């Protein structure tokens, strides 16, 4: 039997899960087992393909190809099946499990699917962890289990109830945390809470286009929509948005989040809650100006009164309503637990200024957005 530690990862083909696997490959000698839907190509081939793609997007080229081939194994599984539909192996006893599989959907029509993946799926992962006899569990949650609260947010159990949340996604993540808290009370359970995850800190590349990218896409599409009916409108019209001068936007590059998460694991951090967030987030209004400028639109006029909205502002704000919850109110995510274990935390040292944010936005607008299929003319 191998002397190397084993890490079992759910969501290894996702944005965060794949970054964690790459980090584990670089920083440890661990063997990785990815519980993965097999798709048409098989679990291992699918997982290897995503990891190789991520490694290239993140500037590692083929440097990790051998490690991926030799140390990563895909095991076909399904979060929706009992015990994830996986038969635990003897060498999984004492392993470390990372649960990063999640639905990032947020629309009301997907409520059932969100809860099925994030809540029912967590129950199945908890059952698998128990059956396998894993030694440590890392649950990738979200810093936004804080819901509508503002001010200092401690690394502590989520306090809010359903009415204190903004959407189904937040509610499902709170419920998922509670499943693990109940199942593994007093055991080695770490709840890891990232803020808004963005691309790689050096290449800016991302595998997933939710969060910041979803907002950029929302603004971009609104502009195009308005211009399909009235040419050039987007470049000559400043939209009004709710703006909070005190608010900050907490963005964390995926590689830095993975580095801190793996650093916690390697340091054998105690079972606690950890905010994997940016230590000095930038003001939200400045960040929004960068987003609009990248899209060649006048910066938004900020107001704290929806009564000042014109009809077009109401249309716009309704379209990006999901994101508004993350643009108002100041949340100061305490990082005391992370900093105590990882004094040189990547999230603490990283500087995200306007130029850097612009580079992230440009990567998305010049890449995936520009590569969308051309749409038919309507004139």
């Amino acid at each position, binding site marked *: 039997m191998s002397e190397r530690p084993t890490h079992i990862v759910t969501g290894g083909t996702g944005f965060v899960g794949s970054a964690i696997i790459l980090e584990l490959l670089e920083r440890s000698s661990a063997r990785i087992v990815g519980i993965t839907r097999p798709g048409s190509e098989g679990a291992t081939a699918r997982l290897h393909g995503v990891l190789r793609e991520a490694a290239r997007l993140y500037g590692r080229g083929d440097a990790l190809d051998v490690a991926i081939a030799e140390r990563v194994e895909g095991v076909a599984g399904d979060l929706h099946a009992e015990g994830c539909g996986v038969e635990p192996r003897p060498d999984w006893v004492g392993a470390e499990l990372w649960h990063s599989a999640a639905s990032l*959907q947020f*629309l*009301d*029509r*997907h409520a059932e699917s969100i809860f099925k993946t994030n809540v029912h799926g967590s129950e199945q992962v908890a059952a698998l962890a128990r059956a396998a006899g894993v030694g440590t569990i890392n649950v990738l949650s979200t810093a936004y289990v804080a819901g509508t609260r503002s001010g200092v947010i401690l690394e502590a159990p989520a306090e809010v109830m359903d009415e204190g949340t903004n959407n189904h996604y937040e509610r499902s993540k709170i419920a998922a945390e509670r499943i693990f808290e109940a199942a593994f009370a007093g055991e080695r359970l770490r709840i890891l809470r990232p803020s808004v995850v963005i691309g790689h800190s050096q290449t800016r590349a991302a595998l997933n286009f939710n969060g910041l990218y*979803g907002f950029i*896409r*929302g603004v971009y*599409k609104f502009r*195009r*929509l*308005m211009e*399909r*009916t*009235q*040419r050039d*409108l987007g470049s000559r019209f400043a939209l009004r948005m709710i703006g909070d001068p005190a608010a900050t936007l907490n963005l964390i590059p995926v590689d830095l989040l993975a580095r801190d998460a793996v650093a916690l694991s390697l340091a054998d951090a105690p079972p606690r809650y950890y905010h994997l967030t940016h230590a000095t987030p930038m003001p939200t209004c400045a960040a929004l100006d960068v987003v609009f400028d990248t899209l060649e639109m006048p910066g938004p006029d900020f107001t704290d009164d929806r009564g000042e909205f*014109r*009809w*077009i502002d109401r*249309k716009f704000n309704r*379209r990006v309503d999901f994101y508004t919850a993350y643009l108002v109110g100041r949340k100061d995510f305490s990082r005391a637990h992370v900093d105590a274990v990882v004094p040189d935390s990547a999230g603490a040292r990283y500087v995200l200024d306007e130029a850097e944010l612009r580079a992230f936005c440009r990567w998305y607008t010049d890449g995936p957005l520009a590569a*969308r*299929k051309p*749409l*038919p*003319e*309507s*004139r």
Partner: protein
Amino acid sequence: MSAPVVVVGTGRCGSTLISEMMRAHPRVLSVSEFFSFITDLGALIPEAFPTAPLTGAEFWRILAGCHPRQNLLLRHGLRMDEVLFPPPERRDLIEAGVPALLLTTLPHLSDDPEALFAALEAEIRTWPEAPVGDHYRALFADLQRRLDRAIWVERSGGTLRIAHRLRETFPEARFVHVVRDGRNTAISMSRHVGFRMALIHFQLLELLGVDPFRDDDRSELEDLSDELAALLPEEFSAKAFWSYDLAPSICGHYWAGEVRDGLAALASLAPERLLTICYEELLERPRETVTRLGAFLDLGAPDPRWIAASTAMIGQGRSDWRALPDRARRDLDEACAPGFAALADAGIGDYT
């Protein structure tokens, strides 16, 4: 011989009334909703104006296509007043799909539109390769011969959007531009099946990133609101269609954009080739306005019977923006403002 006439407007501006007046004229071939339906309510505009020459068979495919948007509406019982064929009880035809030309244009010209359709098909399919403008001219000339009319006048709802293409395609044509208060136009659009579909389609197109009627890629489905997702062709229902909140302000915004671009497209026409008619003028001074329209047709001495018949067709507009609640009225005013400014710059109407 008088040059043909193309009537353009934003749609819901009173241009249908102009079509009806044209139809009453003994020397005019009134071609109705031709470009609306062959472009599937504006969704297939480049396809209807190809830049390369095409054969008669290819041209026939433009005319006789069973297009998805208008046929989806028909299958769900969402029938525009403009659609004259097939009768609602002909479910077999409706389920099979109805060619664009048969919906409105031919039923206005013949009591047996299917026979006329078949006759045109037999002839047009044999036509040699030619630019699309020549094909359109040949089609209208054929209909003029069949019906013994001196000139053709085409009028489709919303063709101000393609005024630049119509000018390029028919450089010899004269244009009638029908203008109506954008606020009343917008209210009317927000209730009209065709305009609702066209504006909903714009939203589906931009938010989904593909034309959902031509591409089954749904990878950006998450960017559609629940209400819009219910209007995808695979989910569509009449209830979802009418439930969708298409505020008059959105239509006002559309109207303003159309007016701005349309005026720019028509600006360089010589004065004798452009007649602008305000719908409100038609209501307030019907005889004078109809007489002006008759003179523009350039078909000889004024025909008093036609002027009388046309004047008698004029009723009252049904939309009244003043009846909207305060907030909706303000929104609509704001949305229409760029269009009013463009009209004022062009010296058209008084919509203050």
